[in-house]
């Protein structure tokens, strides 16, 4: 059973230094250092993984999987970049693997994009944001995992082409081509439901 995550707030510089220190210790098998890394990063990982599933139990499971994979991947951690960036690569791979295993999700409703957008645009409440996120998730679920991933990272996480290349391991040109194709598919998907 999982409770709410504690928010560990540290200034960015000291946080990076603490991460580097703890990651080095964790790589040598120090479980307490790894626990501190989990405590500092689990809120960010939870935000990332919420893009990959809207089911709370599955989400908690995914967040755990990211840290288990991180522990098992410390052999590949070089310590030459930010720990958060390395962890994000693992998170993206974990979420993407989930989508690939599941292929396209069966969406239970036909989202009325225009109607929902009209409702949530001028409503700053969390409930409106949740409704918007559910609609976006349902629409993207109709795309292939690769298209879905690039649009999620571009639109929802607001990453640049370089950042997407870094977290996915794709080349910059592949990210651009993939994004162009995925946007085309999304456009066709949206236009298919557009009233005449």
């Amino acid at each position, binding site marked *: 059973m999982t409770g709410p995550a504690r928010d560990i707030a540290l200034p960015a510089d000291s946080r990076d230094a603490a991460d580097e220190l703890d990651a080095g210790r964790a790589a040598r098998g120090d479980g307490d250092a790894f626990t501190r890394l989990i405590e500092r990063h*689990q809120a960010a990982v939870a935000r990332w993984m919420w893009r990959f599933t809207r089911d709370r139990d599955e989400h908690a499971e995914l967040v755990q999987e990211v840290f288990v994979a991180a*522990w098992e991947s410390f052999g590949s951690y070089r310590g030459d970049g930010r720990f958060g960036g390395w962890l994000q690569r693992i998170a993206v791979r974990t979420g993407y693997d989930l989508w690939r295993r599941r292929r396209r999700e069966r969406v239970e409703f036909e989202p009325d994009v225009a109607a929902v957008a009209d409702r949530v645009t001028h409503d700053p409440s969390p409930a409106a944001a949740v409704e*918007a996120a559910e*609609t976006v998730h349902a629409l993207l679920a109709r795309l292939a995992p690769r298209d879905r991933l690039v649009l999620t990272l571009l639109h929802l996480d607001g990453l640049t082409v370089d950042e997407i290349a870094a977290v996915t391991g794709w080349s910059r040109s592949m990210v651009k081509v993939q994004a162009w194709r995925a946007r085309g598919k999304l456009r066709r998907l949206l236009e298919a439901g557009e009233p005449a």
Partner: protein
Amino acid sequence: MKRLEAWERLVAAARRGPAPAPDVTAAVRSRLAVRAAPAGHRWPLGFAGACASLALVVGVLGCQAWSALNEGWLAWLLGVSGGWVL
């Protein structure tokens, strides 16, 4: 076009959406503790299985030694069949 504009407004709203923040520290530590024991070195039948396997190995080795000393065909047969079973 109307839907494309709507999509952009939807995405802007979706980015504000809150995410659940489960505390997974204990669960991850528990999963790692389970995985920490190398699977290849576990005895599938537990302690009794380990003792039985050890007794069998000692028995087979004893038979082989006896066979080597006495060149008895029964001991030789036991040794070969025991080795095959292992």
